[in-house]
């Protein structure tokens, strides 16, 4: 599963839903793999406001991946600064291509996958298994 997915998931137990500790889930014994995908600048720009930056930062730290910047990057940080220099942002974007930050973010969110391991709820401690890249959030009936 992609790291971006963790931005949208919490513990599945009803009693954990309102607890801040149930998000983000904490990866444990995670085996990572890198799966190449096409990068899309517009997508990156418009996913930025959806990211729980602190949460994504803590996940990358826990996984031992390079640290994300302290603050959410601004959308202009996603394009190379030295564009064609005419100050027209659009042309610059096309001419300049993605910045290092954009490429790192793409590699992290869309290409870094948890192939297997566990996701642990910080509130109740329940561990969800990830196998063959698929996370299992089914709960035994007594835990729902």
């Amino acid at each position, binding site marked *: 599963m992609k790291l971006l*997915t963790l931005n*949208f*998931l919490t513990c*599945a137990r009803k009693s954990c*839903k309102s607890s801040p500790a149930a998000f983000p889930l904490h990866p444990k014994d995670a085996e990572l793999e890198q799966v190449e995908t096409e990068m899309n600048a517009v997508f990156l720009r418009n996913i930025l406001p*959806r990211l729980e930056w602190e949460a994504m930062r803590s996940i990358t730290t826990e996984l031992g991946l390079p640290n994300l910047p302290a603050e959410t990057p601004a959308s202009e940080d996603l394009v190379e600064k030295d564009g064609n220099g005419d100050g027209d942002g659009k042309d610059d974007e096309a001419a300049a291509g993605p910045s290092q930050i954009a490429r790192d973010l793409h590699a992290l969110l869309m290409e870094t996958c948890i192939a297997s391991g566990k996701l642990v709820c910080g509130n109740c401690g329940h561990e969800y298994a990830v196998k063959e890249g*698929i996370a299992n*959030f*089914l*709960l035994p009936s007594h835990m729902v």
Partner: protein
Amino acid sequence: MTLFLPRLCDAISLLRFENPAERSPGHGSVVLVTITARSVRNTELMRIQNIDERHIQPQYIVMLPTPSTSHVNYDHIYEPAEDSYLLLDTLASSTETKFLEDRFAPATASPLVLEVGTGSGVVLAFVTAHAEIIFGRSDITTIGTDVNFFACEATAETVRVAVTEQARAGKIPGHFVDCINSDLTTALRHGSVDVLIFNPPYVPTEALPEARSNQEALDGSALQAAFERDSHLLALSYAGGAEGMETTDRLLDQLPDVLSKRGVAYVLLCKQNRPEAVLKRVREGPGGWNAKVVGTSGQKAGWERLCILRIWRP
């Protein structure tokens, strides 16, 4: 929706969506594209397509191909059927693409689309691949859930194939992340989902198949055990319990929590589910939600008359 095509080659590349060989009746999704007078001469278009002039002005019909599911094992995964295709056609209809484009205007944050119960993945693959046509933007994020582990695997593959196909045709598809093996929306963060799609197990049955943990479901190497597992998984895909509504009722209850402020849900119902009662319940519930029938099928006589409800926050 209206697409303005500045050049003839754009029109031709749009026409590539249409591949009559790939669809059997009812298995395609129609998109109406207005072609402006300046964009292309009718004669050229007709020659390319060899179609009736009536179909060109003012709107031209484009077929979006149904994603391939040839790799899916229907022994334990729901096979795309009339209900699946009704969802595809409804989501690609001009009223829905217009609604979605207006609600999720370009340059707003990337909408998150969740399909609950993806089965083969045919619907999620369609929405992901054709995001540009359906939402007027390709920067959408899509995610799925299913109680059936095999369905999760199949969905990832179906989306991958459809997206690769789009990219090969020079189109920019949406962004699928994962299919989570889970019950309905329980794994999702509250307020995170912008568009929810659900083709539920809707057939009225005595009871719902009992819930089983994955371990029980996946154990069993013996033929008998595999057979039982498969029939259990197939039962999960259609059996809806009382009035066929037991699972759908639970999903409807989750909508206010899981949907975002701009959230909208598409839920398929059959006649026995009493769609009028569901409409009434949503409209009269707290929060002043809207509900409307936006797609129907089952003109042929038969007990399975289907409709699709669009349910959205005011």
